[in-house]
């Protein structure tokens, strides 16, 4: 068991190094740099050359690479080309909004989805199951930006219940409670739309797991023992279906960042997803590289934690079999 974890950790480090290298070269082969996309007749070629020096873009590639690796490992991401502020500061200022958005969306959609899924499995052919099956397919089939734009237009303009943009009203409301309420009002549409788009997939996944579990021998045994249906459902069946649900939850963490890119664009939120988009479009390598690096860390970390969670929650299952779900 210990050697397994050692192997896993070594693997994680290897992946991390791969991510760093891929990052560096990915952004190196991208055409142009921040300086070459400055087009301003008031900037002479000499002034641009001076700018390249400042960003270290005039150094040979290999020295740039070593500087890069060292910086990544020490979390010193340098200055953003676009803003000339430390990249880490830029990212840090955006993390709270993204966590609030994605965290609440993921939590709500997984809780609602799980609850619906369990109930769908209990009564096959019932209303809840139909709802789950239909909402699962439908919410998966709509382009997220389309749904979000329509919601924005409907509930922020036609029926102006919610604000159009951002996370605070202007001028800012006074008092902590009002501030929090204001923040929540601003988050309802973005996070709500993500829940709307996401809960169906959860529900279907949990329902399928539960259907499988409810057909297993130990459930039959529990039924034979005369335990109440409610208890069988939650204490026996759901408990045994919990590890894969947890795993999926953890593995979904990095993936939902994709959702943040579009959501933050539509609702003008100051978050990491929009930052990622801007840095890529603006060829801001230090910023995009750092954002990717953090995503990579998040991926590796959630994979490791998922493994750990799986083995802790269900020790019967040999670690590493997760892949065969």
């Amino acid at each position, binding site marked *: 068991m210990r050697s397994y974890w050692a192997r896993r950790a070594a693997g994680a480090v290897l992946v991390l190094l791969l991510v760093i290298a891929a990052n560096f070269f990915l952004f190196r082969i*991208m*055409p*142009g*740099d921040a*300086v*070459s*996309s*400055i*087009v*301003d*007749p*008031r*900037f*002479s*070629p*000499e*002034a*641009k*050359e*001076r*700018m390249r020096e*400042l960003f270290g873009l005039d150094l040979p590639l290999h020295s740039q690479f070593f500087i890069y690796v060292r910086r990544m490992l020490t979390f010193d991401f340098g*200055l*953003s080309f*676009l*803003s*000339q*502020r*430390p990249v880490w500061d830029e990212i840090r*200022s*955006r993390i709270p*909004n993204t966590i609030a958005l994605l965290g609440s969306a993921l939590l709500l959609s997984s809780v609602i989805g799980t609850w619906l899924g369990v109930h769908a499995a209990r009564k096959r052919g019932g209303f809840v199951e139909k709802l789950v099956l239909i909402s699962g397919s439908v919410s998966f089939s709509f382009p997220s930006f389309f749904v979000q*734009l329509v919601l*924005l*237009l409907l509930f*922020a*303009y036609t029926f*102006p219940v919610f604000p*159009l*943009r*951002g*996370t*605070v009203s*202007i*001028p800012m409301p006074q008092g902590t409670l009002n501030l929090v309420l204001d923040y929540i009002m601003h988050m309802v549409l973005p996070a709500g739309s993500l829940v709307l788009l996401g809960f169906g997939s959860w529900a279907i996944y949990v329902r399928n797991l539960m259907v499988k579990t409810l057909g297993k021998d130990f459930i039959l045994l529990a039924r034979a023992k005369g335990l109440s249906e409610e208890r069988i459902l939650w204490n026996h069946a759901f408990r045994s279906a919990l590890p894969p649900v947890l795993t999926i939850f953890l593995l979904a963490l990095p993936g939902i960042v994709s959702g943040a890119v579009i959501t933050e*664009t*539509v609702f*003008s*939120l*100051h*978050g990491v997803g929009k930052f990622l988009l801007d840095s890529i*479009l603006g*060829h801001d390598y230090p910023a995009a590289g750092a954002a990717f690096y953090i995503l990579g860390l998040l991926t590796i970390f959630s994979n490791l934690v998922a493994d750990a969670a799986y083995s802790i929650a269900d020790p019967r299952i040999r670690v590493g079999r997760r892949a065969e779900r």
Partner: protein
Amino acid sequence: MFRTKVILAAFAAMAIISGAAGAGVFDLSAISGPKASDLYMVIYRDPDSQILALQKGELDVLGDITRPVDVERLSENPDVTLSISRGFHLFFMGFNLRQEPWNDMTLRQAASMAVPSRQIVRDIFSGYSEPLSAYLPPASPYYEPDVKVWEYSPEGARKLLKDAGWKWSADGILIPPGKNAPLKPFRLLSPTAQVAPTTAEVSERIAGALKEIGIPVSVEPLDFSMMMKRLDSHDFDLFVMAWSLSRDPDSLFAFFHSSMDVRGGYNIQGLHDDSLDKVLEELRFAPDRATAENAARRSQKMLSELAPWIPVYSRYMVTAVRKGWNGVISTEKTSADNMWTLINMEPASGGRRPVMWCLSDEPRSLNPLGTGSAYDWQVLGLIYDSLIAIDPETLDDTPWLADSWKVETAGEGSGRHTRLIFNLREGIRWHDGNPFSSKDVKATLEFLKKNEIPRYFDSVRDIEKIEAPDAKTLIVTMKNISYWHLHNIGGSPVFPAHILENVKNWETWQPASEPHPSQKGLTMLVGTGPFIFREYRPGEYVHFVRNDSFRLPGRD
């Protein structure tokens, strides 16, 4: 040809219309302020949210409205006043003059005649742009209307080519004179920028028009950086691009002088013309305004014959202001979203309320030494003043921190150089209460020069010495002769010497988040401007309060 006079009349008519609505005060001496208590520059990046917010009343001023559908919608909105002005935008197609067949002037002229700029403007911008045949934006004081105009006429283009010995193949492709093979297909590089969804469309129209006269062109949409790389390595046939220029015609030198055909230079098309070079040098190193004007006019005439570009259109600047504000200032050449409006506008109902001003992108660093971003400067421009301001109506120089100035040519023979003498205004104070003096200007220019800061590099590199003989006099001696030194030095923002001396590293300086050492509520963003910076909440807004001690020139 484009009935320039009529259009000018149109803008004059507009001024009257907005005057009726309580705005349109053009006499600068009648401006006073600032009158609004607070200013919020609210960040709305999405054009849809901008329009919706304006309609909901969450925004008071929205500049740079580009989509015709929005203009039409807002023009029907009784709560909004629109104003239009000619901008400094210029969209063109460039040829690669380094290679055949584009080194042939006749072909370029014929191509210019083939592009229906006027129809493009109608169909793509619903008329809210100006078709161009010039190499400077028409709003420029140096614009020369009397040039060779390649009026749209495909038949004329064909005739021109035929007379020059061009022939057409069986399938209608041009054959260069003295050759047998028809032209090979060309690529028109077109950036796929988010900001201008219309560019792809315009490029397609141009390519289609060129095909009409037998030039086989297809559009290649490219990421902007990718395109710049191709242009930098001269790996292109044709390209489209847009510039946002300033009032000075100095840009002509940057675009067309042969010395600018270097890596990172803007003579992208590779124009080398000795006689034009001469005139452009006269323009860049003109000792006075008259010489500059003369050279600017001559170079425009020469350019229209050489046809190194096909100028296509220039966008009008459309600005919307909510009704209920008096004192909005807009002219034919300056759209309503300007500093003068900000200073002068006040609620029609009396009293004071904050102005909500749209900022269409994040001000990313708010470091006046490092940033070149236009959005940063929308914010910083209200905090920092320069010696000279630009008159919104004539675009001429007008007093600001300096009361008056002189441009002299001093020295002998090859050592002749420009000397600028500024008389500064008295009684001006920095936001933190310290008095402003010539020492501040001297310290600013010296700081910019010593650190070779890219943004100011070109403005200050020719400074020989800076003298401040007394608190209200500043003498800047340049190394060479150029009238533009006045605008470069006089237009540069002035920073307080007592703050500059504490800047350790200008690249990473973050004045917006460093609190002021002695004044509570202030940051290190201390200027002399009409508004005092309070707070920047990333992704949300920038908050200013009115500078009570601000005085406009002439009312010290």
